[in-house]
């Protein structure tokens, strides 16, 4: 009995990558800037996004959001209070969003009527890093309560991000947050990345964040 080698050279996530490429093309054709927000559970993605959606709508900017969660629609209900169109994606145990889920949940939305589409991923700093959703910008988030070494523990996610947002800066002092260590660690894993130090409670860093969104939308960044 003889055996032989067959070269395959196939990407394991090829199907997702192809779907993501299709989504990326349709986002570009519609002129909508798509951001994928990733973090651990409890970082404050939903609070941050709720503020962002509400504030952008006040300024007449057209926004929508898709929000991933294992089981509940709590986050979608919270985000909907901003007045923006929001859809929940329940993954039922799957630890990440993939391009197919995004494509299905965009059905019926006119992308050309949007300036920004935000995707809040499932709270997880591991698996979502492998799944391209066609986004233009991947935003990795960490809160001051999580520890400054998070970038070193999850290098794949931090290295694949385009921007980093530190949340809950109002708690930095009581938590003994070592700001310099956090900034250094982020830069060690993703040199030169834009970092926003924010708090939706105190308002710090948020104007800068909105400025960044505008810059990216206008293609200046």
């Amino acid at each position, binding site marked *: 009995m003889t055996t032989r*080698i*067959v070269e*395959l050279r*196939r990407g394991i996530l090829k199907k997702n990558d192809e779907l993501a490429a299709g989504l990326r093309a349709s986002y570009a054709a519609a002129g909508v800037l798509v951001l994928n927000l990733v973090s651990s559970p409890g970082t404050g993605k939903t609070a941050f996004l709720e503020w962002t959606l509400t504030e952008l709508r006040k300024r007449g900017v057209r926004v929508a959001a898709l929000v991933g969660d294992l089981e509940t629609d709590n986050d979608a209900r919270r985000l909907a209070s901003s007045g923006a169109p929001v859809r929940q994606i329940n993954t039922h145990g799957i630890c990440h969003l993939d391009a197919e889920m995004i494509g299905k949940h965009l059905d019926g939305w006119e992308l050309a009527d949007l300036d920004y589409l935000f995707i809040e991923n499932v709270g997880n700093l591991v*698996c979502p890093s492998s799944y391209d959703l066609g986004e233009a910008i991947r935003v990795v988030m960490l809160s001051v309560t999580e520890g400054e070494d998070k970038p070193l523990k999850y290098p794949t996610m931090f*290295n694949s991000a385009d921007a980093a947002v530190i949340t809950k800066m109002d708690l930095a002092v009581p938590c003994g947050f070592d700001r310099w260590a956090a900034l250094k660690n982020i830069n*060690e*894993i993703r040199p*030169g990345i834009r970092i926003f130090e924010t708090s939706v409670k105190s308002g710090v860093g948020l104007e800068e964040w909105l400025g960044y969104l505008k810059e990216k939308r206008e293609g200046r960044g």
Partner: protein
Amino acid sequence: MHELSIVSSVVDTVTESLAAYPGARVVEVRLRVGALASVVRESLEFCYGIAAEGTALEGSRLVINVLPVVMHCEKCGEDVELEGVQSFRCPRCGEPCFDLRQGRELEIDSIEIEDSKEAA
């Protein structure tokens, strides 16, 4: 955590490619996995046995070739291999590196198959 879905995709892809080799049995599947691919070798191996059950891949070996991260160092003007994933600086000159050239791969490289008796 998503290793089961990854190996399931491996099993599906290999099964599809076997259409060209009727009756063949898979002996070995070789993967190329970058050091930044966020998958755990042990979990892949554990899940592989489960995903392969009842398919032409059942009982086959999974060989995982881990690829180190390679960055392009602008200062040195060369591609450099990183020793780990805790610092994205050039190991020669110490400058930060921005341009990743290798390390996120998640690919099926090749398979080793045993042709069926009839075909042979």
